[in-house]
């Protein structure tokens, strides 16, 4: 085998990456378009006024606030539950371990619509009205796996003798957790938390089943996509959503870069 890739392979790989990213560039471009009624290309002119218009829109602010609140609380819940699950499953072998790890991955392995309609059915049967908390419930459920994947990878890479060393030096179970386990997990939990935030902030499929009349930012966008009112404003919001999700993902990557904890296919 030659050490250098053939031109054809390079071309195909490059084209593939371009296919993945070029469309997003158009979103940014359109956010500056002066054209209001259609998706005319190339845009007849360029302006930054839509950013100001979007800034003034109360409905966007309300949706954004709701999304951030949901994402924060869902992330917090996922951090606690995902870390606990990772602590239990990382090393100890016990009956039902495989089943539990499958259960953790399931909410993201099954199509989002299944998770959504399931929660919707449960709310219907249990007569639970839609609320802020029904959204959080769904989001936390599929965010657990993200935190879990990060934490479990770090725990498996951490030598078990660190915990023994701590106890050997006189620290009880709680002190060992506080002084040794938690500091070692810190960056992977931060990374997991950020990915969970990005996932929750952006989620729309499950949310449409658990939100009722509430509007998160993705739901606001969805409504605009189906029945456009002011297209350029939607474009501005799209750019904003992109930025908000890119930042934590990049941060998570740099936090765990040297250990490559971010298990991508685990999403």
């Amino acid at each position, binding site marked *: 085998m030659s050490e250098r890739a053939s031109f054809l392979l390079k071309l195909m790989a490059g084209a593939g990456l371009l296919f993945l990213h070029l469309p997003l560039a158009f979103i940014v471009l359109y956010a500056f378009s002066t054209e209001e009624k259609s998706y005319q290309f190339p845009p007849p002119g360029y302006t930054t006024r839509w950013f100001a218009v979007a800034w003034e829109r109360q409905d966007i602010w309300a949706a954004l606030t709701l999304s951030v609140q949901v994402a924060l609380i869902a992330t917090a819940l996922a951090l606690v539950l995902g870390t606990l699950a990772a602590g239990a499953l990382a090393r100890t072998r016990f009956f039902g371990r495989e089943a539990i790890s499958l259960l953790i991955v399931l909410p993201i392995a099954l199509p989002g619509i299944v998770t959504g309609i399931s929660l919707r059915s449960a709310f219907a049967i249990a007569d639970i009205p839609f609320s802020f908390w029904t959204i959080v419930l769904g989001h936390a459920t599929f965010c657990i796996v993200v935190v879990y994947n990060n934490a479990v990878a770090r725990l498996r890479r951490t*030598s078990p*003798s*660190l915990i*023994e*060393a*701590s*106890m*050997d*030096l*006189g*620290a*009880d179970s709680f*002190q060992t957790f506080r*002084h*040794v386990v938690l*500091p*070692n997990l810190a960056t992977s939990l931060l990374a997991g938390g950020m990915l969970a935030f990005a996932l929750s902030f952006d989620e729309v499929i499950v949310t449409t089943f658990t939100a009722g009349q509430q509007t998160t930012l993705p739901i606001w966008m969805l409504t605009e996509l189906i029945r456009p009112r002011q297209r350029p404003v939607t474009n501005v919001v799209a750019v904003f959503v992109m930025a908000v999700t890119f930042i934590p993902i990049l941060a998570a990557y740099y936090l765990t870069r040297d250990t490559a904890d971010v298990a991508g296919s685990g999403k």
Partner: protein
Amino acid sequence: MTSPAVRFDKVSRHFGPVKAVDEVDLAIAPGEFFAMLGPSGSGKTTCLRLIAGFEQPTGGAIEIFGEHVEGVPPYRRAVNTVFQDYALFPHMTVAENVAYGLRIKGVDKRSRRLRADEMLSLVKLSGYGDRKPAQLSGGQRQRVALARALVNEPKVLLLDEPLGALDLKLREQMQGELKSLQHRLGITFVFVTHDQTEALAMADRVAVFNEGRIVQVGSPEEIYERPRTRFVADFVGGANVIEPAAAARLGLPEGLWSLRPEKIALGGGDGEAIRLQGRAQEVQYQGAQRRVTVDLGADRLVMVVPAGVANFGEGEPVALSVPAAALNRMEG
């Protein structure tokens, strides 16, 4: 105090059907440098972990300085461990690692830093306190692990293959340092190794482990010169094992014998020696000596010949003699 530093009374640690440690009796004297020697999976490390408290016995009783420790967690035992992989906390500096035990005990920051620096100078690492473990070499990490354990003034120091990850030169140097450190501190050292030269070089007494049991305990001389079983003879320095049938053929007294290769002499020897004739089957150059496998017809003996004494090629005839006192009778 008359009670031993560590005492095992029929201690077992079974993992399901696997008998990692099986009814082991053991008494380690205070101030002793004690080695647990054996191949991997022989139960030596599990014994160490039982003393440390990382494992609990499934049977039997363990005492540390007369106190029963079954069910006592590691953090409430007056023993400390130097781990095989050193287990230095990667998120703490060297000084923080060393001071960890003191911090848990609630010693104030200034005094524990002082004590940590003292310990670091004891292991010849003064000035390394502010580094992270990742910035140290293997040998230096090993010293930090040692300082971190010793700062707590344990009654017993446990060392799990402490020199296993070091290269040969460093290992020999550390052997001497560990030995003199133990001498100065007077603490009981219990160390686990699979390397028989290391065990013989450092320990006051050696316990040889095989398949979850102790097969022989004794001074390095006893273990080396007078192995009690076929396993010990073979594991500790590769002695010749002479089966009863072979003994009869070679004109030796009846029984199972071990015979150290270096005890076999070339030529006739003195009056009581047993004289044999054979052919050099395989000659292995080892620098200061040659290791010669001698074919005696139905049997084979391995002997070592110091460099410069004689030189023979494979197939040449060899006359050798075995002094009667060199033969060690073993249990069948």
